[in-house]
């Protein structure tokens, strides 16, 4: 069947459709919107796209997205260099930074162990992380991968490698959302929160 769109629009829809979280309907809507946008807005958008691609790279230290060889967190010497937070993805750095609770540095693993997706330790930035330990004087690694099977296995893998080095491996806790209601928590989260209960400090 021939495409009902003129070829340039079809090409645009196809491109948007490749993006994460954008289905065929959204792709169509965005493409239609774009052809109606004023010229200068289009130029700005096109420039933002190419500019981001040209100027963003991975930090040589932590593999977070960065504008320079060393990202702003790695080059900030007010940060506590003895504690490292290992995360799956750059988005997780943003999430943890928003808490304002963590003053150490990060390491972005760029994924988790997932044989089904063909991802083993070699595909992750694990070796790079271990290379940082001694020079930076890291004494604790908090493994902040997602609390699912692959995330847990990756945490175990890292913990096993850290153990002989005398570096403390910790795992981010999982439990109830703050301000939430017990009754709305799913059984697994609630069960784990019960299992990981702690003494109330007075």
């Amino acid at each position: 069947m021939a495409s009902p769109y003129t070829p340039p629009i079809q090409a645009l829809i196809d491109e948007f459709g490749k993006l994460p979280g954008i289905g065929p309907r959204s792709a169509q809507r965005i493409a239609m919107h774009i052809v109606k946008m004023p010229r200068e807005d289009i130029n700005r958008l096109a420039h933002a796209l190419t500019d981001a691609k040209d100027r963003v790279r991975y930090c040589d230290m932590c593999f977070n997205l960065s504008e320079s060889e060393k990202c702003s967190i790695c080059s900030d010497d007010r940060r506590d260099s003895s504690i490292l937070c290992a995360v799956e993805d750059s988005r997780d750095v943003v999430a943890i930074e928003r808490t304002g609770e963590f003053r150490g540095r990060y390491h972005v693993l760029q994924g988790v162990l997932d044989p089904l997706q063909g991802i083993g330790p070699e595909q992750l930035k694990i070796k790079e992380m271990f290379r940082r330990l001694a020079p930076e004087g890291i004494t604790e690694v908090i493994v902040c991968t997602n609390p699912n099977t692959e995330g847990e296995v990756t945490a175990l893998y890292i913990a096993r490698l850290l153990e002989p080095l005398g570096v403390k491996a910790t795992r981010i806790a999982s439990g109830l959302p703050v301000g939430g209601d017990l009754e709305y928590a799913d059984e697994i989260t609630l069960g784990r929160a019960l299992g990981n209960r702690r003494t109330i400090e007075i």
Partner: protein
Amino acid sequence: MLIYRIELTDFRVYKHAVIEIEPGVTAVVGRNAQGKTSLAEAMSYLATLESFRGVPNDALVRLGADTAYVRANIRHDDGREVLVEAEINRSGRNRVQVNKQRLARIRDLLGVVRTTVFAPSDLQLVYEGPTQRRQLLDDALVALSTNNDALRLEVDRIVRQRNVLLKQSAGRMNAEISNTLDVWDEKFVEVGTRLGEARARLVAQVTPYVCEAYEVLAGEPTRVDLIYEPEWRTVGLGAALVAARNDDIRRGITTVGPHRDDLVLGINGMPARSHASQGECRTLTLAIRLGIHRLITHHVGAAPLLVLDDVLSELDPSRSTALLRHLPAGQVIITTASALPEAAHPDAMITIEDGEVVASVKIAK
């Protein structure tokens, strides 16, 4: 729990039908291929999100339609009303709403509706491979506690991941693969051991109920054994995986663990599969279903809906009479293509023809 109304749209043979169901025993009669099993299937779908015949979801959608809908009104014993609406798509994701609230994950429906289905195909429990018997145990575990669903899915996932890893090793072991395998094993041991314990506990709990049900059906005391004794449980999954590692690597699959367990069924001290008659096997599978049904009733405090799909004709008259005389409390649906035996005293009778309800009568007692 009571399903008092079920509406089927484009579900198997049903174009559109609304079926009101009484509490107590309802007989669903009709010739073959008119929609009796489809009705049973719709009810069990709400409980397990799968066909009890083990067919893929798209086989539940009527030929020529893209989406099937099952809408059921449920009343719990405490008076709580629940409207469950399931949308089954030939392609793409299925959706479920409970009381008009869309569930984020359709598996959240598990535990809302519980059904026990007994069908002629249950004979496979005795004669076919262990997959069906594992599924029997795991379905019962999920009905007892929905947490068990996550447990069994996680075991499946770890085994799949581990198998891919083993295949990637291409029969050769190096430090890298060995280290990665170690962590998958550690996780597998944790989760697999829990599943093994849950299955063992279930078998221990359900066995007296099964023996009782068998005795009632057969009319005489009979020794019935459900034996769940996987070898890995005696040495521990960790040790079993270590012992099997070379073999696993060579063959590229996980050769030990709960995903390969079997439940051995025995009658009179002999394996049912090789020593029991077909009649005995049928009685055994029915006794197992009834035993699980009673255990769940006891444990959850409410009887699941019991569906006996076309089984009366499969039993000899004395056993079918015994079954009908000792039906468990709660809502029961009996489908049959032949005349109802005398011992059946249904509270209501529904006649189905060509995917439509042609008659529905309440029977005064």
